């Protein structure tokens, strides 16, 4: 009797399990067949931001690599990447085309803050995953309000917080002067710094802003020095960053200089500003810099180089946008791998919110990690100091995890 009952319950259990998997499999997202997963993407291949198109080329090349190696769980990736020219109305049109006409399973890696803002509500109301958007704004990690959207790169506030921790550790009595661009980007950084300092927010003795239309930031620099700041947080885009570095040197002002990573490029900021003018300046990084010789011996970077040589033979290895594209695409593949044969949109999103992985080109110790309440995949960074020739990493990995 007992055995019979047990057998019966096993049978019922098995039948239930079977029927539930069958039901789940039937709910696969549009664009998913037994042999294919359709993924959509919008990129500025033309227009003012067309330099970023390189990321889209890297995506295409990476998915080709995936397909050459058998795809994901036996399915090939059909990657559709359309040009939006960095124009929000065009993004709406292209994304709607991909969702409604091409029937893609999800939208991956779209670039730009205004362009993604234009489809933010649309994709969430249609419950289409909008994964790993490429912008540093803070609003992309909002699991409650926008459960179908996720960013990827460390956001600006997170970076501001990292500098705050370093300041509190090394110079708790610092007098901080901030120069920031008067828009969302600048304010996000400032907010991160303030949040990081917490109760010691009064350490900020002066904060000066500038407009992108200003010809120079000389006045602001003079004001920050006059306010007695001995620590300088430089939240500027490349052109202004170079001006600020030069002006500080001219005035003989030698604060501890924190330079936001937006402007840490050796080629377009540090060297034009005078390589010796910013020795000791501090910035932060999370992706390997392809021009930095220290990664040559790193296994993850070697894999990247081998992939680039094979799948993008004409690409300039120095272009760090390919690194960005490669890292995003690897993350995307991991989500699909984890989703297995349940490729419903809900499960894709669930897997995206359940990541804990290493990516070869992320600096050692930095991981992609998410949870149902944490939609910020990469939040850690390491500090780096300018030696006069290159950035030298130092200290621990900062950030929440």
């Amino acid at each position, binding site marked *: 009797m007992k055995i019979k009952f047990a057998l019966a319950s096993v049978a019922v259990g098995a039948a239930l399990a079977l029927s539930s998997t069958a039901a789940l499999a039937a709910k696969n997202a549009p664009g998913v067949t037994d042999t294919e997963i359709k993924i959509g993407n919008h990129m500025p291949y033309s*227009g003012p931001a067309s330099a970023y198109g390189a990321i889209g080329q890297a995506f295409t090349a990476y998915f080709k690599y995936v397909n050459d190696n058998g795809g994901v769980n036996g399915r090939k990736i059909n990657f559709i990447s359309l040009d939006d020219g960095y124009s929000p109305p065009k993004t709406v049109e292209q994304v709607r085309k991909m969702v409604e006409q091409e029937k893609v399973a999800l939208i991956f890696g779209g670039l730009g803050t205004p362009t993604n803002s234009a489809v933010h509500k649309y994709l969430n109301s249609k419950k289409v995953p909008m994964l790993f958007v490429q912008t540093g704004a803070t609003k992309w990690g909002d699991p409650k309000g926008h459960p179908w959207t996720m960013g990827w790169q460390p956001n600006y506030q997170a970076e501001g917080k990292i500098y705050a921790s370093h300041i509190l550790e090394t110079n708790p009595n610092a007098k901080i002067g901030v120069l920031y661009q008067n828009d969302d980007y600048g304010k996000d950084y400032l907010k991160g710094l303030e949040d990081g300092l917490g109760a010691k927010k009064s350490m900020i003795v002066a904060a000066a802003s500038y407009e992108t239309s200003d010809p120079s930031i000389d006045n602001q620099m003079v004001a920050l020095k006059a306010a007695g700041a001995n620590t300088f947080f430089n939240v500027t885009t490349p052109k202004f960053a170079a001006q600020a570095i030069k002006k500080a040197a001219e005035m003989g002002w030698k604060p501890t200089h924190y330079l936001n990573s937006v402007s840490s490029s050796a080629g377009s900021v540090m060297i034009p500003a005078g390589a010796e003018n910013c020795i000791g300046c501090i910035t932060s990084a999370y992706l390997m810099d392809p021009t930095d010789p220290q990664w040559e011996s790193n296994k993850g970077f070697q894999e990247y180089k081998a992939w680039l040589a094979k799948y993008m033979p004409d690409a300039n290895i120095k272009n760090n946008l390919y690194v960005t594209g490669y890292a995003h695409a690897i993350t995307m593949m991991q989500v699909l791998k984890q989703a297995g044969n349940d490729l419903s949109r809900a499960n894709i999103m669930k897997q995206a919110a359940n990541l804990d992985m290493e990516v070869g080109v992320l600096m050692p110790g930095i991981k992609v990690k998410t949870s149902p309440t944490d939609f910020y995949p990469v939040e850690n960074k390491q500090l780096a100091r300018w030696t006069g020739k290159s950035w030298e990493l130092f200290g621990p990995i900062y950030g929440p995890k």
Partner: protein
Amino acid sequence: MNLRSIHTLWIAAVLVVLPFLFEDFTVFQINLMLVYAIAVLGLNVLTGYGGQISLGHGAFYAIGAYTAAVLMEHAQMSAYMTLPIAGLISLVAGILVGFPALRLAGHYLALATFALAMAIPQLLKYDSFEHYTGGVQGLVLMKPEVPFEFELFGQELNDDRWLYYFILLVGTFIFWVCSNLMKGRIGRAIMAIREQPIAAGALGINLAAVKTMTFGLSAAITGIAGALGAVTVAYVAPDSFLAFLSISILVGAVVGGLGTIWGALFGAAFIQFIPNVADEISKSAPWAVYGAILIALIYVAPGGVMGLLRKLKKGDTA
């Protein structure tokens, strides 16, 4: 019933059923095309009929779009109500620009208006307005709700289809007004100034007043198109209104046929659909393909699509 009204009825019937013959996304594209058609018509009044070149109509489109967006977002106004206000504000903006532009002729006017097109995205990002305009982030809008349920050919009347009828209604009204205006006394005055300003002045036409009002009317029409565009896309941001938009509108006017009313429809179809065709042909150089198509079209039909149609009708092969 004469032949003409039978034709009109047929066209009306097709237009009414049209959105149910296509899927949602295509209806959205048709909506955008109709919006561009109104914008192109606005420019055509100024450039085609009035002979004044503007490379800055994207700015009026942006003013209309932002007027609608700000009113919907901050005054909770319904999308329908924002149109007349958007038109009025664009009219004032057009007159303000048009009045000093009286002293600028031909190429100089083109450059002055182009400056406006360059300036508008930056002005929209300006800090003091940020509370209203949303700054760089722009504003996300709600589409008007469909008031009742309806289904035809298995397609429901959704927000895109509902918006189609609204745009069609507004568009038809504007086209009808412009068509009548251009056939009448005012239209003749506008064209007389284009052909022979001195003679027109001698005949008692007030050059300054007519030219300024033409500018204002043209800006108002384009502004209304902008408001409709904002509602269709349900999002406005400064990057939506870069100088390229102004050039696209001019391309639409030329391709459709300068100095024609219905040419605007063909011009709008061109600027809406040809970039997509070009993107299909070549991913690496879509704008080169676009340019080639444009040059070919201007070569075949120097008077635009309407010019070509007129030629064909006359059987004139010269």
